[in-house]
């Protein structure tokens, strides 16, 4: 009889101990945000273009974490989809049209710009400088190529142009024959 009591007391003590331990751990090692969302957000290209239907990259990351499909990111293209698929442990949705997107930046034709500031308000990353009734221009290095400034322009003076390859950004593809201008 006393054995049983001792065993019971022992287990009760252990249960209490572990309970306290778990309680302490729950407080001490508490994770505030959903870490999956952070990881997904880090994989997304942060163009903030809204082409996925969400107002920015983080909302889409949250949506994926809640079960949305992973192939909505247009600027990220196939590489991003693959990485998200790896992270989420899902299959890459079969789709023919997704491929690596060409990186583009906005370009303002300055002779047409009337200085309406509409593109400045549309730019999610503040990559357009200018003031009212002054010519605007795009900071090329900060432009994410999201297209959001193109539609608001009343004079259609914003064009998306491909980022030219420079010797620094060249990918060592020796198969491509460089185009040479003959004068």
């Amino acid at each position, binding site marked *: 009889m006393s054995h049983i009591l001792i065993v019971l007391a022992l287990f009760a003590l252990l249960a209490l101990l572990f309970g306290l331990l778990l309680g302490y751990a729950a407080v001490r090692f508490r994770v505030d945000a959903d870490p999956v969302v952070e990881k997904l*957000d880090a994989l*997304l*290209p*942060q*163009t*903030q273009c809204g082409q996925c239907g969400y107002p*920015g*990259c983080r909302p889409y990351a949250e949506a994926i974490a809640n079960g949305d499909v992973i192939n909505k990111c247009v600027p990220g293209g196939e590489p991003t989809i693959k990485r998200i698929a790896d992270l989420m442990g899902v299959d890459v949705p079969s789709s023919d049209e997704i491929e690596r997107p060409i990186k583009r930046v906005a370009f303002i034709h300055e002779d047409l710009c009337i200085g309406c500031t509409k593109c400045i308000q549309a730019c*999610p*990353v*503040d*990559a357009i400088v200018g003031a009212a009734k002054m010519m605007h221009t795009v900071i090329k*290095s*900060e432009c*994410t190529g999201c297209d959001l400034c193109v539609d608001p322009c009343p004079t259609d003076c914003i064009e998306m142009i491909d980022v030219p*390859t*420079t*010797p620094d*950004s*060249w*990918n*060592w*593809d*020796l198969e491509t024959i*460089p185009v*040479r*201008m003959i004068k």
Partner: protein
Amino acid sequence: MTLSRVIDKIWSGKLWDFHGGIHPEEHKLESSEVPLVEAAIPPLLVLPLKQHIGSSAEVIVQPGDRVLTGQPLTRPESRMQVPIHAPTSGIISSIEPHTVAHPSGLSELCIHIQPDGLDEWRERFPLPDYQSLTPLELVGRIHEAGIAGLGGAGFPTDVKLATGREKVEILIINGAECEPYISCDDRLMREEAQRIAEGIEVVRHILKPRLVLIAIEDNKPQAIAAMQAVVDGEQVQVRVIPTKYPSGAARQLIEVLTGRQVPSGKRSLTLGVIMLNVGTVFAVRQAVLDDEPLIRRVVTLTGDRFGKPGNAWVRLGTSVRWLLGQFQLNPEPRQRIIMGGPMMGFTLPHADVPIVKISNCLMAPSEVELPPPGEEMNCIRCGQCADACPVSLLPQQLYWYSKAGEHDKAQEYHIDDCIECGACAWVCPSSIPLVQYYREEKAELRRLEEEAQQAERAKQRFEAKKQRLEAERLNRENRHQQASQARREQMTQQAGGSDPIAAALARVKARQAELAASATTPGIPNLGSEAIQAARAARKQQALQRQQGSATQPAAVTPVLTAANPAQDNPAQTSTDPKTAAIAAAVARAKARKAEQQAASDAPVTPSEAATTQPAISTAAEAPASETAELDPKKAAIAAAVARAKARKAEQQAASDALVAPSEAAATQPAMSAADESLAPETAELDPKKAAIAAAVARAKARKAEQQAAATQPTMSAADESPAPETAELDPKKAAIAAAVARAKARKAEQLAAQHAASSGSSTSAPADPTPPSSTESH
């Protein structure tokens, strides 16, 4: 092993070795045995803005400007920007993109100079006593001279010297020149040993190292001899190292000379070592002592197809094509021109490419001499590449991962440490262009890194914008709140201390309460609003009536109309305040219409029953009208109107009930009229005002009760009569009024009865009420 001990060992003449390495055929003698010549000034010079690692500086000349030899063409704004200078005097013909010396064959912005052949120098400030300048001033002078590492990487020399100042223990002058075919450093050391020694002194003055080592491979005995002749052999020593490719690579040479490896991802300065190419040292000397910026360099021109191989001083910007012609190229079909050596160089896309600061060799090999790479075969995992790798990497693994695009794995296997020396590809029995794979992978990794950085920046900027917009919104709201607060305070002051909004709210509330009260207790009506509402309702009703009147069955409608009309026609009412009376009348009419309408719609189904209700209606309508005659004209009229309205309602209800249970409805009529009359005498002696109200209330109540009673059982009419006598004793005034009302009614009824009797005298339903207006079809 501390560096002091290393230096001790170096003193004792010890040399180390590095892993791997290869021994390709040297082919140096073709070019190294011909004295250095001066290449002439070409007809056009094309100067890329960027000829080094870093970014291009700002152009400070315009097309059409005349520039002198050595004149700066760009102005650097940071340390990683290196200026370029005019290699000879001439006119700037244009500033436009031109193919640059790069394997991609891409174009970059270049300054095009049309030389005038005079080679007229700008004013020069030679500085023979450079020791009088501080090291930093000398570094500035080197920066202005546009000197970048001439060994091949093109790292800005002044940056190297500035960061290495006072941290350097060992300065290594790299004259190893390990790559086959190239002999430009060999030739320079042979012919300009004295100046190189002076350059070493300049660098020593800046860096103050404990030891200077000049490393030369043992296949250049003449260069070794020339250098040994000009150095003291104590602080500055010539070290002869065994020939092995790639001993001239910075990290490998450091390992050979000091036995220590530069940690992965770090610079050699972490070991206290700085390395400069002999050509760079010579350029430093020229810049400091002679004020000659970097406008020319030694270029090896070699290969079987050159009729006159050798080394030449070539002005930067000279076209390769022009140079090939100068050195009598005898081209074969599809002649390849390789810039750099056979191991690390690249085939030029075409010959219209300028010589830049890092171009050390031009090679025009024949097919036999340097066969094009064989067909790529599968990796057989022989492991020779791993044996040859001077960095001790695993080229096989890197190959697999690069090919498969497994970037993480490639990085895990230290692809970044690959120096692209080409030893692995050289030994590969399957002719796999391994370095090409690594370069592609490195470019991809660099791109991904850049993208990640840009994404991070975009994220930060996006967050910042969101935060800013939120702050602006809050600010705006705050401002609006403050403005409204200020306005309110101002109004309060104007209104004499009380809060005007609160006051207004209170007024509204009071009004609402009043309205509610008047709605529930018809005895105390709010005169103004109710009258207006009533008038409005009446007008509406009339309009409706006009619309519907013709449509509905006239038999049912007309009697009701006549029943309601007496109230309006009542002469007694006309004696009251004309305005209010008119309104009351209008209200009454409206009510009547409503009732009629209802009755009319019901009537088609049971016309006879609807007809039976009419007498009741007429009595109710007449009673109040006559009452008001003796009362306070205003209030009385209203009370009358209210009472009538109630009556109508009751009737209406009764009528609708009647449809369901016609017999019961018929029975209620006597009861109703009885209630009306019983009230009348009781209230006769009362205060006219109160009496009228009380009477109205009582009647309304009675109606209500009747209504209910009628629906359930007709016998309840008896109960209705009991409250009436009670009220009689209450107030004498009321009784008087009631009496007056009763009298008025009686008179009216008589009057009407007489009228109708005369006109038609037809069928009349005769209930208890003495004067029922008959259903006059002719009306």
